[in-house]
């Protein structure tokens, strides 16, 4: 089992979610986050006081899936979330030791 963590531009969330559902990925967890990489922030001015806003709003998608589906999921996310402009985001892959379904107690493949 692997966890895919994808940090993407917020407006891409719906498209990515729909594309993942179409290839059979049933669930995901989404968090609103702030961050920056190479994308520059912007400046806001309030009554003469300048504020440089470094952190940009992003969305983090987390999905835990079987190893066999990882390649296709990553390819889908990258294809759909890409705009070609700086700030498109990143995808990380993390090994998962165990997964448990709370309602039934199922473990492993049956839990995800």
């Amino acid at each position, binding site marked *: 089992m692997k966890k895919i963590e994808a940090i993407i531009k917020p407006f891409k969330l719906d498209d990515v979610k729909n594309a993942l559902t179409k290839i059979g990925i049933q669930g995901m967890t989404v968090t609103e986050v702030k961050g920056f990489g190479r994308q520059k922030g912007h400046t*806001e*001015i*309030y*009554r*003469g*006081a300048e*504020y*440089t*806003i470094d952190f940009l709003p992003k969305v983090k998608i987390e999905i835990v899936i079987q190893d066999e589906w990882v390649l296709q999921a990553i390819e889908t996310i990258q294809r759909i979330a890409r705009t070609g402009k700086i700030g498109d985001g990143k995808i990380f892959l993390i090994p998962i030791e165990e997964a448990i379904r709370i309602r039934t107690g199922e473990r492993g493949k049956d839990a995800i």
Partner: protein
Amino acid sequence: MRRIGMNVDTGDTAWILISSALVMLMTPGLALFYGGMVRSKNVLGTIMQSFIALGVITIQWVLYGYSLAFGPTIGGIIGSFDWMGLRGVGLDPYPDYSATVPHQAFMIFQMMFAVITPALITGAFAERFKFKTYLVFLILWSTFVYDPLAHWVWGNGGWIKNLGALDFAGGLVVHISSGISALAATLIVGKRKGYGDEPMPPHNLTMTLLGAALLWFGWFGFNGGSAVASGSLATNAFVVTHISTASAALSWMMVEWAYRGNPTVLGAASGAVAGLVAITPASGFVGPVSAIIIGGVGGTVCYLAINLKFKFKYDDSLDVVGVHGVGGTWGALATGLFASKMINSTGKDGLFFGNPSLIGIQALSVVSAWIYSFVITLILLKILDWTMGLRVSEEHEINGLDISQHGEAGYSF
């Protein structure tokens, strides 16, 4: 046998009572105007400083504040305690102040001015002042700055009134006093922790704009009601108030657009308030075209003034000095330029209407208000600093006023 209320004009009285309610609404309006501009952890603390003035100053005014401000004069300097507890302030008109309106209506109208004036100062020391000390400051400042100044300018026999200075609705008494007192306060209280390094942008400009709109609305009572009658003079004040505000909102927005690249919402709202401040002393003496100029110049001058705090490195957090101090000063001087007896025959002509003496009297009244407000406020704050402490602790300032001073959170998401 005389009935209570003979000579009372129902139209005049209705307008004064409505105006009192309009001015009352300006205090929560101010609370929201300021509240939106601070960080979210301080929103309740900021709102509370304005709101609680309604409680504290109301009682002070009834017990002795009205008497000191408007009571029988002692040497033109202060009123006596004759009207303590509103003794003698009844439902008949009091001709020196309100010929056709019950004395208590005039009293309650004036009360709303006394309430909002110290609340204006709170913008200068936003996000760092101890609530307990603030309650005491409210009482002391009203007693030793507001009441005497109101007496000088509006009280029967007041020395600034006798000098011939014109202040229709509070350029001196409300705006210059609070603006210059705010300057004294910023110097004593000191900067916010992290000022200049940490970002402190407004947390909710929608709230600020709502507050500005309520101020604009209420100000029709502030200036219109100062005619103490319903009719032509109230109409003039109402009309020029609106025109000046519109002109100033546009003026600030345009200047900021040219200088900084964006027409901001905060700029339009701030410009509107600057226009309201500037027209306040002039509203019963100037006409519509003068109002366009007074507002237009006021918006620009106040915009330039707020940039002074960066030059002189003081943290007047919500720009009380730049908007009320400078705006009120411009308004008081503009009255000396644009006043016309054709608008108000009981007033005077200004420089542009052939009378050069008024502007000198206005300038003298302005300087007196500056000096008095600044010095007394400095002394009061110094005493409070030694006895009670003015600032919250560093930890409380970091955690925010809402939780540290009031045990509450403004928002729970």
